[in-house]
């Protein structure tokens, strides 16, 4: 049985646009003998059970996520295709710790540089998805990846890189704040604001340094990151992230620049290793094996020799397959439906017994039912009020007041301020009338008050 590794398609002359896919490719390239596996640039995460790529297919078994793939390979080959097997304790521990470190510090950098930064995203990253995915999908995939990337980097406070959102808000805001409360404008930073990347340059390079420095120190003079002889899973992961940091040629190259100028050793190591593992630059047509080239392909692979990757043509199920994926990704992007879909995905995979689920969800379910019943009753009541089927005793007066303030509302902010005065004046007149009544004028007053307060009239009448 030949294993199939499904990945996101190639970009920037690298075999994949996703760091985890690059890591998985490097791992299989090193651990699994040639001829036992092929590489498929599917670019369709819906294939794998965890809804993410890379995914490994062995017959009917699908394994999603790169860590699961490593585990599965170890099981499948009964401990033969494992990279981390021969490491001493301390190095094994370092391998685990630094893997988590590379992931947690590398992901935000790639998010910022490829997806959040508007200029890089619109000119480079988004067009790439057109080349690796079938027609309607590039309208959905990159924006959703960008949204997750923004969410992941929100805590860093660098959303200013995303120019699209800032333009509208930034301009309108100052005009509402009165002159006397405004802060003086920082003129120097205005000059710098030509590009948001230069504006936050210091913070960006500090962020990048936190990733590069420990890695550089860990590597030292060794050939690989943790060991001099052993190519470990950490090297795969670091290679995936570092080459996506280093290789892309972007209009805002702060990340690659920081790496090249401050950590030349690490940059050289990444380039060298990438060359030997991925076997030179990869073109989109290499990966997709476009029909025109199908006959020339075998000759080319043999020419390239050992370094090149075992690409196989992706099968995306024609129009029906693409349509299915399109619909399912639309489903994910609709607020409530998408949430439900994600929930079911977690439960399916968690493999919980249905009994467990019933207990917790039933309380929530009853709550939602009660809530919807209440809101439905409320709607019906509201409708009846509106139509005049039922009316409160004092509805006339309240309507009058309501119309008063509604007129003022049309004036916007000023109206809101004025309406307070209006209300107070209304109250005042009422009080004065009440006082007038207490003083005990005769019948004429009662006549005047008829439309204001029916009850009190009744009282005065009975008194008489």
């Amino acid at each position, binding site marked *: 049985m030949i294993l199939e590794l499904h990945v996101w398609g190639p970009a920037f002359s690298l075999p994949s646009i996703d760091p985890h896919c690059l890591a998985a490719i490097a791992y299989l390239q090193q651990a699994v003998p040639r001829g036992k596996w092929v590489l498929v640039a599917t670019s369709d995460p819906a294939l794998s059970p965890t809804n993410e790529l890379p995914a490994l297919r062995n017959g009917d078994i699908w394994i*999603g996520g790169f860590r699961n793939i490593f585990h599965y390979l170890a099981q499948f080959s009964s401990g033969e295709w494992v990279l981390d097997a021969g490491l001493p304790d301390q190095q094994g521990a370092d391998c685990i710790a630094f893997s988590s470190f590379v992931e*947690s510090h590398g992901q935000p950098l790639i998010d910022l540089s490829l997806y959040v930064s508007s200029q890089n995203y619109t000119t480079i990253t988004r067009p790439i998805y057109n080349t690796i995915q079938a027609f309607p999908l590039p309208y959905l995939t990159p924006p959703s990846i960008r949204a997750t990337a923004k969410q992941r980097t929100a805590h860093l406070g660098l959303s200013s890189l995303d120019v699209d959102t800032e333009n509208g808000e930034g301009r309108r805001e100052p005009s509402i704040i009165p002159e006397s409360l405004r802060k003086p404008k920082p003129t120097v930073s205005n000059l710098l604001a030509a590009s948001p990347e230069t504006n936050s340059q210091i913070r960006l390079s500090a962020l990048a340094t936190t990733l590069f420095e*420990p890695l550089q120190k860990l590597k030292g003079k060794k050939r690989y990151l943790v060991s001099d002889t052993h190519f470990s899973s950490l090297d795969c992961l670091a290679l995936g992230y570092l080459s996506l940091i280093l290789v892309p040629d972007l209009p805002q190259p702060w990340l690659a620049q920081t790496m090249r100028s401050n950590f030349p050793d690490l940059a050289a190591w990444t380039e060298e290793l990438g060359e030997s593992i991925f076997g030179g630059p990869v073109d989109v047509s290499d990966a997709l094996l476009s029909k025109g080239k199908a006959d020339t392909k075998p000759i080319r692979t043999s020419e390239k020799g050992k370094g090149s990757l075992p690409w196989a043509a992706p099968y995306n199920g024609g129009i029906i397959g693409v349509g299915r994926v399109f619909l399912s990704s639309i489903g994910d992007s609709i607020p409530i439906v998408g949430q439900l879909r994600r929930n079911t995905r977690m439960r399916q995979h968690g493999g919980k017994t249905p009994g467990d689920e019933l207990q917790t969800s039933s309380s929530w379910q009853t709550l939602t039912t009660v809530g919807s019943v209440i809101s439905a009753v409320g709607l019906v009541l509201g409708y009846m009020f509106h139509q005049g089927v039922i009316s409160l005793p004092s509805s006339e007066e309240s309507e009058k007041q309501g119309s008063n303030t509604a007129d003022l509302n049309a004036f916007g902010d000023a109206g809101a301020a004025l309406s307070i005065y209006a209300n107070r004046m209304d109250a005042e007149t009422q009080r004065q009338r009440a006082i007038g009544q207490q003083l005990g004028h005769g019948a004429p007053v009662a006549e005047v008050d008829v439309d204001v307060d029916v009850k009190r009239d009744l009282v005065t009448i009975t008194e008489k």
Partner: protein
Amino acid sequence: MPPKPRDKRGADEDSSAGQSLAPALSRQSRKFANLFAIPPPVKALFDYVPVLVYPPNELPRRAPKPAKIPSLYVFSNKEDAAAGRPSFNPSCLKWQAFLNIAGVKHRLVHSSNHASPTGALPFLLPAASASTSDTSQDTYPIPSNKLVKYAEDHGASVEESSNLRYEAYQALLDQRIRSAWLYTLYLEPLNFNAVAYPLYVSSASTNPLVRASISHQLRAAAEAELLKHSSIIDIDDLYSEADKAFEALSILLGEDTWFFGSEKPTLFDASIFAYTHLLLDDSMGWKEDKLSGALRRRENLAQHQERLLVRYFGG
């Protein structure tokens, strides 16, 4: 007169829109926004307001007086806070342990997220200074990320490990173990009902509606946090990664008393303790104990927790 400022603004817009990427679209939307703008004469009037700004009012008499010693606001209950026992929230416990290790005297105040100026616990309210002149500056609450500096300013010697592994193992703790913790506490139904519900939900309110809403919020927040890093919550992966993380930490500690072979426990020891103590503490009453089981297998980590507990929390 009135049209003048509007003209000027229009000219402004044109020049700025010319620079932007989609001039036509943005100009269109801004014109639309102008419909709702405040009319210039009204705005000119409003620019004079406020005419006079009064100094801030003094606090009411019944407001709590600044205490003689700084108070640390943590998740806890009344008795535990008074006795200085460990908090049941990992990030609170981390800083509580840090302050105990650094020897900064403080008292605990049981509290909730809503009390915090940053929206997160813990925070430290410094002691009232002897000179009452600059009280306003001095009594600002200190969020957790400034606590190290606070401890240094108040005479504690804080050792920061410069080991190259420090960052990596910290990431291991913040990513792997925290994710597994979030899952096991909030999303595992057995544990949520037995452990998290009494601690975080029923202590906050007696109203069933409020309780349902809080517990839903907690679980949704935990889920959102986990889904940030992967497209699906893969439970087996979470537990196996946490197991590997404990293994790595156990190897890192080895036979040493404290992490990175230092003389005194550091902030890193405190952050390990925050999780190990809560997982090993029997009074938490874990129902699904995969995570604490994984920890119990690493004896030196359990001993490390015992050591810290005895030395800095008086047993």
